């Protein structure tokens, strides 16, 4: 039997394709990562099918590239060496919503849109990155360590236990889901760690190179009962960051983020492009957004003490911060933004990153918040060298864990249909990441060519990673050519 026929046997002919048009769709995405064509696409429905696919791939030394979303921005699911695309979008069941323990177990094909909708019915929400694409896999976004907008929960990291098929073809459950017979067990899968090793850590950020995750447990939170969205225009980023150092240690608020005028305009504009241009021109350089919320009990009292804390601090220590229910000149922006922070991007609206020019190359990294203004300057300098209009750079600073760190994100918008633009942005991107890395920007999610830059500077880490990879994937079939493999 040929590989093709075996694959068809595993998933059924309807869920198999080697049609060039179909293959072509998987060969590229919204990133600048060069196209790479797979040989086959399969859409399994069960973990047993996934297992058989991997076993077959091992036998034939064929690469397997897992993908769980129908939309990609980072190039991780573009095959570098051909092989089989294992498209898990059919594995889209929400398996359990565990209200007592505030946990959802869902397959990797569950989209943000579906997850948010179904959880809302029970009064729950899932911690989210900023306005994720509705068709992205919620599990995979967490597995890939997308940074969430909520800063208040000390325990962070929603990801708990998972089911994975190892590159050698074994089905395995991590954490407390590893008990025999799970979920038919007293164990609910709430502990991500163990057994024996912290397998979940090896799977995080792995871009599908360590195995195929089929479902995961994630922490969910109650929906808030009352919210107040506060804004502050920001002229002085350093000053505002100091303010955040002060207030975020007090465990107030739910979401807290900084957006520059371009990104905020791209998110908030309704009538496109007029609203966008107007917003971009009139919004302050940066805007601080802080959402205060009340929970199940005495919610107004909670809001009150949080507001009092803020008032005191602003009065006594940060008098230049003008934190208010609304952004002067932008009535109703709070009403607009709260759903954006609590829901994925609306399905029917072109994705905010693609609305402006069609393409967007994001540069994101972790850093100390105080470094943010300098990094912003660096990116502007690089952009200027390429004649790229600084106004077209979107900026987003996401404080993390009481503002002890932050994720900085620069969104470089461009026209993907213009070869000139594409090449310019590609070169700009290359230079920018190089400059940023040399100044301490921490790229913990090295997609595409960023991986070469990162691992060349972290040879010790790369060596150890390869040794671990060898154990789990001796034939190097899982998404080869990715990370440092």
């Amino acid at each position, binding site marked *: 039997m040929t590989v093709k026929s075996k694959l068809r046997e595993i998933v059924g002919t309807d869920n198999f394709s080697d049609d060039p048009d179909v293959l072509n769709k998987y060969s590229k995405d919204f990133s600048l990562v060069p196209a790479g064509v797979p040989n086959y696409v399969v859409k399994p429905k069960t973990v047993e099918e996934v297992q058989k696919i991997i076993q077959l791939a091992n036998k034939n030394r064929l690469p397997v590239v897992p993908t769980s979303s129908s939309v990609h921005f980072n190039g991780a699911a573009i095959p570098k060496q051909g092989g089989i695309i294992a498209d898990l979008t059919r594995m889209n069941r929400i398996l359990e919503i565990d209200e*007592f*323990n*505030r946990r959802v177990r869902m397959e990797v094909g569950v989209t943000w849109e579906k997850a948010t909708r179904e959880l809302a019915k029970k009064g729950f929400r899932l911690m989210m990155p900023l306005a994720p694409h509705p068709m992205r896999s919620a599990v995979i976004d967490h597995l890939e*360590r997308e940074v969430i907008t909520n800063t208040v929960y*000390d*325990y*962070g*990291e929603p990801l708990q236990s998972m089911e994975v098929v190892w590159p050698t073809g*074994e089905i*395995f459950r991590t954490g*407390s889901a*590893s008990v*025999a017979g*799970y979920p038919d067990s*007293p*164990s*609910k899968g*709430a*502990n991500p760690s*163990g*057994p*024996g*090793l*912290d*397998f*979940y*850590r*090896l799977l*995080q950020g*792995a*871009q599908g190179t360590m195995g195929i995750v089929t479902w995961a447990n994630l*922490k969910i939170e*109650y929906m808030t009962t009352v919210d107040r969205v506060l804004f502050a225009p920001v002229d002085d980023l350093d000053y505002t960051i100091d303010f955040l150092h002060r207030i975020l*240690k*007090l465990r107030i608020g739910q979401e807290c983020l900084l957006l520059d005028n371009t990104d905020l305009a791209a998110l908030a504009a309704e009538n496109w492009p007029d609203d966008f241009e107007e917003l971009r021109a009139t919004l302050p350089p940066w805007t601080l957004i802080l959402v205060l919320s009340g929970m*199940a*009990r*005495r919610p107004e*009292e909670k809001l*009150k*003490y*949080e507001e009092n*804390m803020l008032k005191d601090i602003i009065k006594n220590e940060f008098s230049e911060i003008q934190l208010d229910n609304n952004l002067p000149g932008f009535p109703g922006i709070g009403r607009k933004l709260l759903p954006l922070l609590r829901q994925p991007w609306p399905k029917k609206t072109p994705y905010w990153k693609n609305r402006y020019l069609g393409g967007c190359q994001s540069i994101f990294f972790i850093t100390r918040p105080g470094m943010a203004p300098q990094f912003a300057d660096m990116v502007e300098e690089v952009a200027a060298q390429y004649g790229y209009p600084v106004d077209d750079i979107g900026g987003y600073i996401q404080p993390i864990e009481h503002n*002890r*760190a932050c994720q900085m994100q620069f969104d470089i918008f461009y026209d993907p249909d213009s070869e000139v633009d594409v090449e310019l942005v590609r070169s700009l991107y290359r230079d920018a990441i190089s400059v940023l890395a040399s100044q*301490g920007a*921490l*790229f*913990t999610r*090295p997609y595409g060519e960023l991986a070469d830059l*990162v691992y060349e500077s*972290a040879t010790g*880490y*790369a*060596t*150890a*990673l390869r040794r*671990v990879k060898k*154990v789990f994937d001796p034939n190097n079939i899982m998404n080869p050519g990715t990370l*440092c493999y």
Partner: protein
Amino acid sequence: MAISKEAYKVLEAIVGDEYISSDPVVCEGYRSGPGGYEAGLGYERVMTKVPGCVILPLTTEEVQKIVKVCNRYKVPYVPYSTGWYGPRSHCHVDDELLIDLKRMDDFEIDEKHLYAVVGSGVIYSQLQEEAMKRGCYIIVGGGGSQCSAIANMLGDGWSPLSYRIGLPHRRILGTELVLPDGELVKMGSLALQDDPFWGDGLGSDLRGLLRGFTGLRGCLGIVTKMAIKLLPFQPERLTPTGISPHTTLQLPSNRVKWINFTMPSKESMKKAMFEMARAEIGAGATKVPIFWRAIAKASCKEEYWDIWSKESEETIKDFHLLRVLLVGFGSEEQMEYEERVLNDIITEIGGEARRTRPTDESWFKNADSAGMWLMCGGYVSVDYVIETLEHALPHGENYAELKKKFTPPLMPDYGDPGWFQSFELGHQGYSEFLVYWDPDENTDGVDHFYLETSKENIRKRFYTSLLGPHQPLYLTGPAYGPNYHKWMLAVKDEFDPNFLSHPPVPLAHDEFVEKAEWMRPMKDWKSPKLP
């Protein structure tokens, strides 16, 4: 007992003659037991040895060199921070090198970015005090303030304060790990820069090699430096007061408060924890086992037994004490709010506040963990599990039932179903089952019970922290994952093919069962010939 002369000379050249010794008196000082955590039991008697040589490095570079020399001369070694964890942290084979890391006590702290960088020689109370001076705090693991912060962060790292702060795994930031072949892996941001503030890996996260649930006992390398996340605290001082043995921290009652509540039932405690979590209030929520109260009240062992002997199954069954910690992290007003909400909850459920001392010696500085040995001289936790509250309660109850078959030699606890608490604002629950025995009597029953709990976990599908090196690997391996042991051993084989790093861990308990004649009848699982 000694290591080869050639190896000794080379090692001496690395650290200087003042910091190495194979003198039998020095080495005897590093004997595991007979007293200590899990000590006096069969595992300690059968599996532990006095080292052949002890060395005290100062830097990561020295540790690397030492490990490379061990590889060259095939000298087995074990890393040792304080030796507090008992036999599993001591030498297990003859002529073994014990690498005592206590000199590696460098310390830096960055309160703005909420982390401290420590060497293996820094213990929790040092770190906690430095953190608190700067308006921060950490979780001091249940093992107590005397734990090496790094060692505990690799194998434990939780306490009732985990209610808000959660799993220790994500408090491990930039870390240096000397692999069993002597190569150095820097993890987190240290992989790329000389700044340990961030913990995530570059792509795949190699922190996965550090601990599993409860640690690898050093069989996969030696951590020499770790940045540990701090959490923001409140600004008032917790004032040390009293003279030994009655020392305690005076809590600033406007910002930090423990409140004990008597509750009508165990279920009501669970409900209270659930409601607190739903309301997102509190900084700690734990059941109080009654015999701990007896320890706290007793001024000596005899007084403890005087108090304890008055208890019975009836009194235990009816004793439901919930201890809640409130911290006004942000303001007094916040604390007042939380106290109002807490009272709403307790009133609804039918609990009652008791007079509670405004002091703490147990959790912020955890100065009294050694009191676990007061009662009997022997103690071990046969399990401590983070899962959910729904797992925690039946887990403890199951053990209580099982324990009856092994009492004596275990201390009578009148069916107490162990300790449980809420973690991560209710996303997780914790249960721990502690047992005590008289080490000067026959302890075979304790060894049996210890292993039997592992089998019970498998039978009943409980998760457990006692995997990996803690129980026979070939027993637990097939039952969890399944076959997690295969991966552990494969990773071990990749990084330590000569089995020099703390041999025979992770197969030590397997070996114990083979070696100890009173354990052999318990072996009803398959395993290959042990290396």
